[in-house]
């Protein structure tokens, strides 16, 4: 087990970017924008973002933008909130937010806010607290939070709070670490964490750590590396990360590596993918594993990128 095989992971990510002819990559082509974020954010955390030609990526990203201002998962697809945030995040990584017409993107997002403060993912109307996070995070990066009704947005998120202190996808929905991350991220960005019972939720979150040291997303479920991000970033946002056993979690994540071919999987011995590679590396960064860039839990971007966005003008 031992250590993080950085070079192997870099190689793995670069190979995924290039392997556009594989069946797997073709089947996932509609969410390539998410894949770009996972891969590039990982490279940046590992200090290797310059391994790619940013101009090529940026050119492709802009081709994914629609008239409405929203971004699609790939060329030839419809826009969606999911890909709009990833697009903006990738541009932020490259310090190229200036290629955007921020108002245009902001209009797309604000147009998706509903009467009750919730957000739809796209024109087809699916509502989920995830979309509240995507909207708020994206607008925050673009300095356009004033384009939405923040108070209503916050009230909707608060209505998704459950009696165990957690949050679900919609009011009454089961508390789930992924949904909790989204709600906390949105509340943190809008300065509304007072809606959270931090002690109660902190306890629920630290109860996600199972015997193997890994984290699950709900009671009695299996651990998965992606929860190293959802649970950990949530705990950090409410200042309770010391309630989990960090060493055991680090060991769990490292055990999920494919030390030969690079990449990280959901749990030890399973097949790797870019999604889990990102969450494993990001989780290790939150755990202050040496040699990794610090990452901001709310915006899910390296701290130096976030500083650039908010403190340089």
């Amino acid at each position, binding site marked *: 087990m031992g250590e993080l095989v950085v070079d192997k992971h870099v190689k793995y990510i670069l190979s995924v970017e290039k392997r556009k002819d*594989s*069946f797997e990559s073709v089947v996932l082509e509609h969410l390539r924008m998410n894949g770009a974020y996972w891969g590039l954010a990982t490279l940046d955390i590992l200090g290797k973002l310059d391994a790619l030609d940013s101009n*090529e990526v940026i050119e*492709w990203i802009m081709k994914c933008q629609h008239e409405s201002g929203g971004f699609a998962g790939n060329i030839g697809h419809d826009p969606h909130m999911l890909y709009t945030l990833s697009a903006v995040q990738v541009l932020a990584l490259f310090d190229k937010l200036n290629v955007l017409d921020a108002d245009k993107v902001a209009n797309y997002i604000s147009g998706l806010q509903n009467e009750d403060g919730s957000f739809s993912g796209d024109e*087809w109307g699916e509502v989920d607290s995830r979309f509240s996070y995507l909207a708020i995070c994206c607008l925050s990066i673009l300095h356009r939070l004033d384009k939405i009704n923040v108070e209503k947005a916050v009230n909707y998120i608060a209505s998704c709070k459950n*009696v165990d202190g957690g949050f679900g996808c919609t009011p*009454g*929905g089961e508390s789930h670490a992924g949904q909790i991350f989204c709600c906390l991220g949105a509340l943190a960005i809008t300065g509304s964490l007072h809606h959270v019972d931090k002690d109660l939720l902190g306890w629920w979150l630290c109860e996600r750590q199972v015997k193997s040291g890994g984290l699950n997303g709900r009671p*009695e479920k299996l651990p998965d590396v992606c929860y190293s991000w959802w649970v950990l970033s949530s705990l950090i946002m409410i200042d309770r990360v010391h*309630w989990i056993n960090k060493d055991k979690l680090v060991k769990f994540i490292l055990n999920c590596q494919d030390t030969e071919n690079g990449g990280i999987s959901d749990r030890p011995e399973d097949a790797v993918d870019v999604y889990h590679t990102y969450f494993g590396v990001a989780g290790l960064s939150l755990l202050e594993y040496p040699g990794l860039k610090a990452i901001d839990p709310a915006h899910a971007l390296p701290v130096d990128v976030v500083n650039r966005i908010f403190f340089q003008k």
Partner: protein
Amino acid sequence: MDAEEHKLRLSQDPEWADVTPIPQDDGPNPVVPIDYKPDFIETMGYFRAVYKANEFSPRALQLTHQAILLNPGNYTVWHFRRLILDALGIDLNEELNFMSGISESNPKNYQIWHHRRWIAEKLGTDAASKELEFTRRMLSLDAKNYHAWSHRQWVLQALGGWENELDYCHQLLEKDVFNNSAWNQRYFVVTRSPFLGGLEATRESEVKYTIETILGNPGNESPWRYLRGLYKNDPKSWISDPQVSSVCLKVLSAEANHVFALSTLLDLLSHGFQANQEFRDAVDSLRPSNSDPADSDIAKTICSILRHVDPMRVNYWTWRKSKLPSSVSV
């Protein structure tokens, strides 16, 4: 659509002779087709053509069917299919049958669940029982499928059908008492069903139900949380209900996983519960022999015990101990 009808390749099908397929454009580095199946490239090529041309026809509908079977995650195909369904006024009950066919092999696909909701919304209350039956079937395959639960909650609130829901939760808990989703649904029902009278009206029967469950499996996290939730905004009733404190005592006096009983007792004490000698004895008997010296404060003793029996969360229990009032209440 079966294999027979699909044998004729689109490029050889006279029905498609007027259409030129559009290849995938990934930007500067075009896709080099080497490994993937020919029907995939071909179907998607024709799909891009009808998508670009905004063709809302029966053949386009059939094409989206093929594209979905090849890649049900492609959300753009689903969008386009909805546009066609609307334009052609297709019978949505037929569409539900198509959905049910592909759901079992794609149980966590967001597009499928959303498409289904879109249809059910259009069909209205008539669709309620069909949707409840469908989610029941999906949950029989994976009783914790978050999408299925989310859909089911939406159906109940938008289309109705609450009458048997509490019983359904019970059935699921009989199969797996650790199913947190079923516990969450139970809470959803007792707090939101228009037929049960709300939380306070159902509290007594729910407390009984929960306590029985706890005694069967004291290490089960969900019912302990559920029990606390039954007293949501009324901690006074929670600490004064003898059933609550006595279940803690029962578990502590037995050979069982004591963690949740201890933490619940700790919470009760923090809210003003007064522990008698029986409780003190039960807690004291759980002190590991090499632990910190005996503390006259039962709450502090509980925290010390928890640090030993739940070492993963030692920092949490240490913090809980530090938060206890320093003045001892006997």
